[in-house]
């Protein structure tokens, strides 16, 4: 009887780990998809010379489909929205800038066990890069 009680307590503590493995894989999948969608949007923006409203809307739609606990206001997209042009010499002023911030709202699968609040159990994932424009003047 004593062994059963001890084992039950130990199993409850050990269950934290498989739950965390699953949460980590879930978050990793979402972040990988975020990388893919941002890169696709960037490739379209290179050809257009800037992030057009259509590119931004498509990116938001794709991200909302991947992240099931986000709404549109959570995704912060700060990108170049005026045309940049391809020139014969390298000019860093003609780079297209993009910064996408997405909150990861569940880092730990069992936050209450560790005494964490919902606000402590999240962080912002940021992708910020530059790309050259292929738009001819």
């Amino acid at each position: 009887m004593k062994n059963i009680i001890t084992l039950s307590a130990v199993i409850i503590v050990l269950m934290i780990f498989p739950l965390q493995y699953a949460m980590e894989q879930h978050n990793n999948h979402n972040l990988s998809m975020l990388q893919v969608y941002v890169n696709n949007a960037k490739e379209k923006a290179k050809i257009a010379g800037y992030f057009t409203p259509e590119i931004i809307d498509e990116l938001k739609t794709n991200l909302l489909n991947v992240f099931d606990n986000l709404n549109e206001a959570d995704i912060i997209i700060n990108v170049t929205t005026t045309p940049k042009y391809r020139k014969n010499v390298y000019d860093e002023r003609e780079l297209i800038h993009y910064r996408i911030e997405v909150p990861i709202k569940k880092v730990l699968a069992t936050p209450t066990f560790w005494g964490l609040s919902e606000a402590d159990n999240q962080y912002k994932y940021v992708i910020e890069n530059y790309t050259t424009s292929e738009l001819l003047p």
Partner: protein
Amino acid sequence: MKPLIVGLALAILYTSFMIYQQDNNQFIRALEDLKYVADECSDSASLFYNTSQFGKGKKTFNQIEGKKAIKDILKKNLNLDDTLTPLPGGYWTETIEYDVYFFDDSNTTFPYLFTDPKTSYSKTLTEPTVIVTVNAGKPRFRLSFLNPSDAIRSSAYEYESSKF
């Protein structure tokens, strides 16, 4: 007592696995990002070409402007200083090394078989091409007994002429 000891041992094992899982996932994402940066470098370098040679029907890359673009893109996208050493806050910790190869009408007869000396990847080039190989050094793994190799990613951008 025995279940408690076994439980503690399992907890240590599970924690080690969790650490490896997080580090490996982070490494795979950083490697994918490195590939995107290599793509961006080769693409950007291929945008600059010698216009007077182009007017004579020869595609010759402007290597000076191309190399400027590559270095600046690496600095901005991998968060590096002027010596290509990572600034605090990024994933990579070692100085970034890169190689760039320009194959165009001024120095190459096509088709040409290119073999990357670092990755042994080979590609038959049929058109003017810029190839960039970036070595970002060792990834971050907290389990000290792991000995990962350097993260190297390569990208080629080819100028495709119109075919009628």
